[in-house]
Every structure is written in C-alpha cells, then in structure tokens.
C-alpha cells in the first residue's frame, strides 16, 4: 500500500515563556531534526510590568527607586542611566567626585554580575563545583557592596546630579583588601574556566556568533565584544569619569590571539572584564578628587528645579550586559511626560538565532545563558511530536546537558 501522508522529518519544541536559562520570560520555538536545531523563532513581551506607565504619576526622585527595580542584578545601572537622562534634560552637572564614585559603584556591580554569570554558566553545563567556587567570590563582592551602600542588592545609591553616599578615608583599607582578594581569585578562577577540560569541551565551538552577525543584529556588551566588535559605551562616549581613566576596548583576542565568537570566548571576555573592572576601581580610588558628592544638596530645591524643566534627555550607560538607554521627556509637570527604557538584553535576543542554529538540544541552556539574559526562574518545555504532547521540565533539560558533559568526558 502506498503511503499517503508525507512523513515529517522535523519537529517543533517550544521553550518558555518562563525558563531558567532565559533570564526574562521569552518564548522560543525550535525546529529540530533529531538533536540538531534547524530554526529558531523568538517571541517577546511576556514581562510587561507597566513600569514606564507608573512613572507618569511620580517625580524624578521617586522614579530613581522604580528604575532600581527594573532588574535585580542591574539595580545600579538603570537608575544611573535615568539620572544621566534627567541631567541631560535639566542641564545639571554632577561634581567631579560624584562622577568617580559613580564609576566605582558601576564597576563593582559589573564584578558581581559577571561572577554571577560565570557561576550560572558552570551550572548549566553540570559543573556545580565551579558554581559554588564562583559564588563564594561573589559573596565577598556583595559584602563589599553592602559595606559601601548599606544593602546587598537594592543599593539606593544614585541621585540626580550626584550620588548619595560618599566613600570616606576609613573605608579605603577594606576596599583595597577586597580588591586584592578578587585579584587572587581572578587567577584561580581564570585557571578553572580557561584550562579545565570540561568547560573547554562544552564551550569551544558552541554557539558561534560571527562578527558580521553581531554587527548586523546590533548585539551589545560582552556578547558583541566576544565576537570581536569593539563596542563599549564607556570608551566610545565619555560619561561619568571614564574619560579620565585608562580604559580600552577588551576583546577575547587580548588573551588568546584569535576571535572565535563562541561560548568559550564569551567566558574569556567576561573574565577579562572583571579584571578591567578591578583595575578601574583602583584607578578611581587613586585619582578621586575631594569635594561635593551632589550638585544640589537641598532635595526640595532640586525637585522645584526639575518641575520647571521642559525638553528631553537621553542617558546611556554600559551595564554589565551591554548598553542601556533611557529616554525621558519633561513638559513642565511634576512627573515626566514619558520615560522609555531600552535594556541590553533586548538587543542580545536576536543574536540567539545564529548562535543556536546547528546546535544540539543539550546546548540550549549554555548557549542561551551565554548572552547573560536577565533571569526569572522555574520552567518547563513542552514537546509536540507526532501529535503527542509531552513536557520537558527544567530538570530534564538540565539532565540532558549534564549527560552530554559526561558523554564527552568518556
């Protein structure tokens, strides 16, 4: 008997909208041929919390704390970009000391974020020992943050036209001691991540993003720099005190001499950036001038000044994940007329498509996590195959990933 129905050679699996390797709720649909990924489709817009809308009945000082809650890990860079946008609109110039203090906080956040990412990446390939080792170092970074700001995560540090807390002389020994600890650990972690066989096997040649694709798809931050594109807001435009500091573009070829644009390169990239951040904090402590830390210490006066502002402003800041852009427009009221955020992860979503094409299912967690998207937890994957539906939970996906590591070890 002749077969009437054509046999389907590919099948689809949806991943998301909620998934542990995707830091923000995003919906993926994979077209698979056996284990190989043939095509990927990404859908966005599952985490609309109306933050921008809620800002329309708040004044700029209140919005600073709302911006802080856009993301838990980037709780400094969103208020920073917002403050830059408001300063741009209202022509406020922050005092020099404040600019240096802002750099210190920004770089400390980068160290925390990159270490967190390194731990998550190790976990995704089933290498949990490294997760605990990395997060042990991160704990120290969080303790330092707590010491400087009074809180581990929501720092409440940014103020329009300056910063809220100063670094006094008696705080310096503690900062230097911790920076020395990070440097020692940097060497140790560098060895683990760059020379270990397990990490190399899973990350080399996986999730390749070419320089051309990175440019075409507007990737930002470590994701694009790992592909060899020299794009960094800290260097390209001078804001805060970055203009005075010795800073240059970092690409993975600084260490290895070649740019491959794979997951391994993104690991190198982030490790190099942690080192760069430590050096930047040291430079800031050396060069920091004395003086005021806010342009207008009387907040009631600042509010009155902001109420009169009409016009628009744009703030750009290099967050740990890439460039974050805040746009704000005032029309002479208490609250801004509009406020728009462009978070870095938004740009790093499309590069997932060239990265994931041709990879295996077991590589999805590490490749998706390699762009360091903003994470929300718990997830399941539903597989629809031949009309039967079954689900693939987070644990199962993780198990597949661990199994691949074991298979390669043999």
């Amino acid at each position, binding site marked *: 008997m002749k077969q009437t129905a054509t046999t389907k050679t590919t099948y689809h699996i949806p991943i998301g909208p909620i998934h542990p390797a995707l830091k923000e709720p995003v919906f993926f649909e994979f077209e698979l041929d056996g284990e190989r990924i043939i095509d990927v489709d990404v859908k966005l817009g599952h985490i609309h919390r109306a933050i921008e809308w809620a800002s329309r009945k*708040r*004044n700029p*000082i*209140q*919005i*600073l*704390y*709302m911006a802080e809650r856009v993301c838990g890990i980037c709780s400094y860079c969103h208020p920073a970009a917002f403050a830059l946008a408001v300063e741009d609109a209202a022509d406020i110039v922050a005092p020099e000391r404040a600019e240096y203090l802002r750099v210190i906080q920004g770089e400390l956040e980068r160290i925390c974020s990159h270490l967190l990412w390194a731990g998550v990446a190790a976990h995704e390939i089933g290498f949990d*020992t*490294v997760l605990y*080792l990395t997060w042990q170092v991160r*704990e120290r970074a969080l303790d330092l943050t*707590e*010491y*400087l*700001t*009074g*809180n581990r995560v*929501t720092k*409440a540090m940014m103020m329009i036209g300056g910063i*809220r*807390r100063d670094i006094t002389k008696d705080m310096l020994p503690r900062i230097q001691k911790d920076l020395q600890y990070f440097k020692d650990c940097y060497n*140790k972690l560098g*060895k*683990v991540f760059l*020379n*270990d*066989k397990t990490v190399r096997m899973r990350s080399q040649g996986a999730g390749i993003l070419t320089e051309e694709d990175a440019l075409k798809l507007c990737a930002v931050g470590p994701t694009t720099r790992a592909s060899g594109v020299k794009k960094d807001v800290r260097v390209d435009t001078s804001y805060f005190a970055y203009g005075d500091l010795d800073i240059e573009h970092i690409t993975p070829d600084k260490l290895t001499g070649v740019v491959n644009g794979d997951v391994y390169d993104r690991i190198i990239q982030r490790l190099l950036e942690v080192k760069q951040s430590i050096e930047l904090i040291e430079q800031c402590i050396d060069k920091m001038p004395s003086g005021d830390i806010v342009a207008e210490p009387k*907040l*009631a006066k600042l*509010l009155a000044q902001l109420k009169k502002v009409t016009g628009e402003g744009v703030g750009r800041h290099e967050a740990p994940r890439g460039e974050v852009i805040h746009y704000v427009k005032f029309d002479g009221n208490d609250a801004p007329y509009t406020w728009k955020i462009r978070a870095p992860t938004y740009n790093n979503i499309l590069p997932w498509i060239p990265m994931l094409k041709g990879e295996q299912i077991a590589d999805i967690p590490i490749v998706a996590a390699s762009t360091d998207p903003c994470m929300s937890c718990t997830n399941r994957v539903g597989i629809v195959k031949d009309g039967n539906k079954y689900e693939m939970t987070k644990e199962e996906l993780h198990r597949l990933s661990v199994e691949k590591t074991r298979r390669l070890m043999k």
Partner: protein
Amino acid sequence: MKFSMLPSVFAQMFKKPWTNKFPAKYAPSNTTNFLADVGAGKAKLIPPIETPPNFRGKIQYDKEKCIGCQLCIKVCPCEAIEFKPKEKKIKIFLARCCFCSQCNDICPTDCLSMSDEFLLADADPYSKDLIVE
C-alpha cells in the same frame, strides 16, 4: 589540567561553614515557645551577623521635631507615608516601605532616621510593629 580545582575543594572540606546559625543551631519546632524559653533564660539565642555601617532598617520617627512639612510624602517612592492633618504629623506604613531612606535625606528637621532593626517579618501588614507614628 584535569582537576584544577581539587586543591580548593579539599581545603574547603576542612573549613568551618560560613552560615551563622541564627537564631538557634537547630530550627526550633515552635518559634514562639523558643522565644519564651529565651526570655526565661532556658535557651540561648545565637546572635545575628552585625549590620553594615550604612544599614537601612526600621525607620525611627522623632514626633516632637516634626513640623508637618510633608516633604517626605512628596519623595517617598512607594507611598508608604500618610499625613495626619489634625495633628500635622505623619504615619509610616513599614509594610510598604522600600527602605531607600530618601525621606531621611529630604527632612528639614532631621526627625527621621534609619535604625539597625531588621527583624520585621509579620503576618499582618497593619500590626503595631509595622506602623511608625
């Protein structure tokens, strides 16, 4: 190197755990009874880790100093402060407070300050402990 982390892992095995076992070494089956025992001197409380110097805990309110200018209400990001028009004083709902200490900064008479107190968990958001007035 195949086992590059092995030295660290072995060193870790002989270190004391970092976790501070607050409030007791083993979690008490009944917290209220445990606290009563502590009060009676029968059980011992393991102290929490010290708070950092700039820690922002429960707000302290000096009612005498307050002049009722309402500036704190204007900057509070979470609308946690209520004005009492008759007395011209404020009432702070800690269940809504995000502990940013912005009201402390704007207060012209310095009647607000942040304390070290952080044990503020409560089942009732309007309990006496969570309202400062």
